[in-house]
């Protein structure tokens, strides 16, 4: 069997149809959309087309979609732009402890510059409690930023309820939907979303391409100044090839979403059951139902994550973990700590994220290879030795 790729939350392989857009707008219709001459019009048309395709996925208007260089840039722009434009009304931001670093570090930076931030805790499944949000709102709150679905544990937030509170209080609501867009249904109006970050490389599109949905009427300052691109809101010559590819990827994701979601969820649940049933001392992290279609995150007691990954890698399987060793810091994933896992369990986590290219065969291969790997590592572990002695 060829290499098995189980890390779709990290990035995805580009689809052929999407790659064709890159080639076309890099070598055939390679013009700058701002140029006057006729051949450049195809480039402009491509950008407009992509805008429309992406808007359709979230039931927004095309002129509410703005292209950026990444989901991270979208997060930075949304948060910094919102507080900058609304700082006369207050200086308080509400977010959660399990956000992506692009949100967390932006908030931390703002704290050093006169803003106050409340980091809402989450329950054991990773869900933000609505009562906690309500209690955190102050007269000085100008932004609520809570991710649509979490990249590590897959948990999907009660976005509509959060949006409703924000709307009632007249507070801007931003959601980092990088992991959710194109995989589950999103309706920006029905869910009272003011700003939304998305990224192409999570839906079989290119890296280096993001977008920000900005609801009409939302006051948002620029992050990047320069030329008149994106209605003067985000300068820089458009990455036409990337944008065209992003649009095509969004179009395909939208058309196939229902079927893909069902297929992926089935495979996900099959894997979860297979692992929890056949390997003892395991725990599913994240909400069992309110969960991204492809996300499997399991803690294996008594052992450490990177060594699981290394052994899987040697068997031709690519996956991820929340251990400190994989993050390069001394602490394990802040998300796993946020849902209340003690350090040693957080270190022993394995994340498998499925995509459209994964098969039943691959899932079975993992179920076959994992138990002996876990057993080997447990036999090597002083923690397991200690546990056995206590029995």
């Amino acid at each position, binding site marked *: 069997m060829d290499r098995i790729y189980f890390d779709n939350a990290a990035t995805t392989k580009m689809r052929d149809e999407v790659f064709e857009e890159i080639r076309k707008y890099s070598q055939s219709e390679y013009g700058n959309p701002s140029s006057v001459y006729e051949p450049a019009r195809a480039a402009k048309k491509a950008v407009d087309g992509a805008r429309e395709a992406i808007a359709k996925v979230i039931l927004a208007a095309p002129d509410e979609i703005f292209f950026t260089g990444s989901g991270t840039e979208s997060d930075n722009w949304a948060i910094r732009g919102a507080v900058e434009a609304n700082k006369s009304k207050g200086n308080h931001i509400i977010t959660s402890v399990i956000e992506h670093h692009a949100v967390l570090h932006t908030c931390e930076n703002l704290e050093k510059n006169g803003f106050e931030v409340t980091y809402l805790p989450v329950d054991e499944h990773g869900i933000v409690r609505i009562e906690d949000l309500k209690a955190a709102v102050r007269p000085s709150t100008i932004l609520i930023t809570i991710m649509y679905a979490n990249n590590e544990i897959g948990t999907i937030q009660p976005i509509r309820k959060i949006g409703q509170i924000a709307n009632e209080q007249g507070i801007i609501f931003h959601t980092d939907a990088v992991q959710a867009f194109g995989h589950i249904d999103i309706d920006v109006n029905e869910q009272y979303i003011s700003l939304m970050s998305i990224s192409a490389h999570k839906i079989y599109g290119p890296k280096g391409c993001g977008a920000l949905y900005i609801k009409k009427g939302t006051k948002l300052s620029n992050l990047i100044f320069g030329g008149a691109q994106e209605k003067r809101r985000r300068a820089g010559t458009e990455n036409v090839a990337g944008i065209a590819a992003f649009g095509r990827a969004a179009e395909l994701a939208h058309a196939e979403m229902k079927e893909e979601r069902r297929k992926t969820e089935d495979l996900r649940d099959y894997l979860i059951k297979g692992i929890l049933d056949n390997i003892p001392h395991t725990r599913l992290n994240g909400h069992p139902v309110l969960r991204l279609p492809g996300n499997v995150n399991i803690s294996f007691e008594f052992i450490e994550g990177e060594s699981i990954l290394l052994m899987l890698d040697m068997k031709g399987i690519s996956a991820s973990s929340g251990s400190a060793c994989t993050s*390069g810091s001394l602490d394990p994933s802040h998300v796993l700590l946020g849902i209340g896992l003690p350090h040693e369990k957080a270190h022993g986590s394995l994340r498998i994220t499925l995509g459209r290219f994964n098969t039943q065969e691959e899932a079975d291969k993992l179920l076959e290879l994992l138990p002996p790997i876990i057993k080997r590592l447990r036999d090597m572990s002083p923690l397991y030795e200690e546990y056995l002695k206590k029995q």
Partner: protein
Amino acid sequence: MEYSAKVLDHFENPRNMGEIEHASGIGLVGNAKCGDIMKVYLQIEDGIIKDAKFKTFGCGAAVATSSMATELVIGKSVKEALQVTNKAVMEALDGLPPVKVHCSCLAEEAMHAALWDYAEKAGIVIEGLKKPDPDASHDEIAEE
């Protein structure tokens, strides 16, 4: 992760993994908080390390460094074993990625802790061996 072939070998085929019953000295260092725990068992007769075994909770580098550390001390005298520093372990493994150097420090600490335990049990003093500090952080910049 850029691990050398030797590190990967020791990870895939660890030497001396296991326990020693009635060990002459046992050292246990690290903690679950950092994500690295190493346990070293030593069997010492007439001042010579006859056997060494290890158990490790940790990443590839943690397993490889503890495996190599036990391999380097077997057959050596207690005094010679003190020369098995984190530097020696890293060299024997053809080096470690900078972010993993602290694992080799932990392996050295585990070995020293086992030797200290042996010294206390045997009622002797090992020259040059300091009492292990359970609160020491093993992530300081190690000697390269």
